[in-house]
């Protein structure tokens, strides 16, 4: 059954790569990430699948907001190839890269090393994670306990991308105020009413994911993105951009500093050995901080795109 899903997966990826029109690319990419999330789920990784779903819907939104601007900007386009080209000409264009990648893939498969997976660390982690970090979800306890150092840089990556987006979008921060932009409302009253009913559910569900991250699937990142999507709904309902970017950005950075300090206090300095009774509290508060950080980051990027990159 998994193989059939994987075949669908590859098909949708090929569709996304070969498509010529931008709107088709976006739709195929959405299908592709849907199916890949299901595949992750089938591989026994609901955390990764959740992250993929949340992230892919957000990156779709980012792409769409940017592409709207892109069409207004780009004027210099190389002429389209005429449609009545001979098949042989097309083949001569496409064949060399195909052969090249086929040779590469063949070499790759020829050299795949023998042997099954070495489960040294897996066994160690599955045996020890409850004792060493706590929690019921091994994945959470790895990325908040054993490898929290990586998670720190992952949070830093989001922070840097927020800073980069804010720096590179065209206008400066002083120009921000709600009236400057004439947003076009495309949602009608049916949409607005329905989304109004739904969006508290998003917030609650995000909280649920964050608070239950250490015992079941989910965690700071997934919950944070769910909370951020609540603010996308806010945009869809009220069509406003009055977000205080400067303040949210400072908050985001302070949250990051809090994550770093908490992690270094608890893990690096070894408090988890001395106070085993607050481990659960540590996991929950860490998840909450990460969720805050992630949702702040995504809110800034989204509103920045909406307000500055659009028309």
């Amino acid at each position: 059954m998994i193989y059939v899903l994987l075949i669908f997966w590859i098909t949708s990826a090929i569709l996304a790569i070969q498509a010529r029109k931008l709107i088709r690319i976006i739709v195929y990419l959405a299908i592709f990430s849907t199916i890949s999330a299901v595949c992750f789920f089938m591989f026994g990784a609901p955390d990764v699948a959740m992250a993929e779903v949340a992230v892919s819907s957000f990156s779709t939104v980012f792409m769409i907001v940017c592409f709207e601007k892109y069409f207004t900007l780009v004027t210099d386009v190389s002429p389209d190839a005429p449609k009545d080209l001979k098949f042989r000409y097309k083949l001569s264009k496409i064949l060399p890269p195909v052969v090249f990648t086929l040779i590469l893939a063949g070499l790759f498969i020829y050299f795949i090393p023998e042997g099954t997976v070495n489960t040294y660390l897996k066994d160690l982690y599955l045996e020890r994670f409850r004792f060493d970090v706590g929690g019921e979800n091994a994945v959470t306890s790895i990325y908040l306990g054993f490898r929290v150092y990586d998670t720190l840089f992952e949070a830093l990556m989001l922070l840097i991308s927020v800073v980069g987006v804010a720096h590179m979008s065209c206008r400066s921060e002083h120009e921000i105020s709600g009236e400057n932009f004439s947003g076009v409302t495309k949602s009608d009253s049916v949409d607005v009413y329905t989304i109004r009913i739904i969006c508290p559910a998003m917030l609650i569900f995000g909280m649920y994911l964050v608070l239950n991250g250490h015992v079941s699937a989910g965690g700071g990142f997934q919950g944070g993105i769910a909370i951020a999507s609540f603010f996308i709904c806010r945009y869809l309902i009220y069509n406003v951009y009055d977000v205080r970017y400067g303040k949210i950005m400072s908050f985001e950075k302070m949250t990051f500093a809090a994550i770093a300090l908490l992690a270094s206090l608890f893990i690096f300095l070894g408090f988890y050995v001395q106070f085993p009774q607050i481990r659960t509290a540590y996991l929950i508060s860490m998840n909450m901080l990460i969720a805050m950080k992630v949702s702040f980051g995504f809110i800034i990027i989204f509103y920045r795109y909406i307000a500055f990159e659009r028309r």
Partner: protein
Amino acid sequence: MLANFVITPILIAVFLYVFASAKAAKIVAIIAQTAFTGLAVYLFFQVKQYGAIITSIGNYESVMGIILRADTLSTVFVALTAISFLMAALYSYNENEGKLFWFLLFVWQSLLIGIFLTRDLFNVFVLVEVAAVVVSVLIMYNRDNRSMYDGMFYLMTGIIAMQFYLFGLGYIYRLTGVLDMEVAAEILSGLDRSSLVLPYALIITGVGLKCAILPLFTWLPKAHGSPSAPTVVSALLSGVHIKSGIYLFMRVQPIFQELDASGFFLVIGTITGIAGFALAICQTDIKLLLAYSTVSQIGLIITSLSIGNEYTTTGAMYHAFNHSLFKAALFMGAGILSKVYGTRNITDIRGVFRRFPFLGCVIFLAILGITGAPLFNGSISKYFIMYGTTWYITWLLIFINLGTIIVFTKFSTMLFGRFEQKEVVVSANAKRKGETDFHHRDKTAKLRNYAESIPVNKQVAIAILGLVCFLGGIFGSEFITFLFNVEVSVDAAGYLEKTMIFAVSVVAGILIYRYVVRDNAFLKRFRAIDFGFRGTCAAMGGFFAAVLIVLGFVMN
């Protein structure tokens, strides 16, 4: 304790960004960098005295946590990073770059230190990815025309290369079940040779792009020589950032001990060295010339690392150390010159000695260093690189050095002669950009003011770097013993011989420059050689296939 070296700069950066004003940020930054340099040197002495420090973050048993390691090599690089960033902070003290610049600078520093200290393969991936994004934002910091393309090119190629690396990491995990470098090396040494080929090829493709060996170097001149990137960023990129690639190259080789790829990289490194200077000769832009010369020096370092002799390895490490010093000095000097003269074209800049004797002297010191003149640090490192090699490799290395001399002959033509102010050219430029006459006058006035006094902080920064170049030559063997714990001594006769060779090649280089290179229309055609993005991706695939074929079939 080691984790603090990585976390503290980030925390300082966040503190500066959120609380401090732009003016206070500079002062705090300088103080913090000074303190940090002191700490890094202290760490170096600790390691030298008591041996390598190895800490597992969180004190988890076995390899469950991430393990940091500070041995002699990594602490040398950490100290180098701290010194370079201190100089960079000093250099850009009087520029109005804003808080964001300092924030990114600090974050970049901590990421580089993280790469040098970590022993975990996945952690390397994360750090390199973040560093790529930070660098691309810094390259585009001025949001100018050309740097956009350069930054995007750098970011995309870097990310794709790291996907190769990550794939190889997956195979290492599958084979060994761990992500730690040394434990993985231990387990892999007991395995069959044929099973190591694929992970090695994947990982070396990623690392190879990061250290810009031959088919994969096209991003380097774009990123390092991007015209409108801040000068400090170019200096640090060529000075320290590229060394992180070299460092990873040095760390990856011992993991695959069974798979001796040194012959392959000997060839690749030599070709890189030759191609680097051949392309550098064709350039007329100061920054691009320096960037291509970096490619050539990287080729030299890779070659000498692959020879496998103890002396050459030490020489390569010392050369990497020296290269960051003189390249930083050269880039900073080039930044000042291009600002003062208002152009980046080498043929338009003349008479630096006459106008700014001090700056000219420092640049000349750095040039002597990079060409390997006697009594300078370059000569010591190049002496050790050539120590005990077979004759053809020696001659190839001398040939690469000759190329470097030609390149820097071209560079040093700026220092001599007399400068005529080409007012007309400047105004034509200004008119094309649509600036009003008033603005134009204002601009030239500013230019003149700037010309009369180069700011003190810039002079201090660049002078320290030049001085270290000189000291590194005089106390060369002591430095090597001190830095890398390798007992070496400079043989007087051999050194004299090298001096003779240097003198001969200087004469030859100047003659070749005078009669062959200058005004050669044929070379101008090669100036714009560029694979483009698609070409780079194809080159990545081709390099990957070449490593597989060579290691799997030819060298089996």
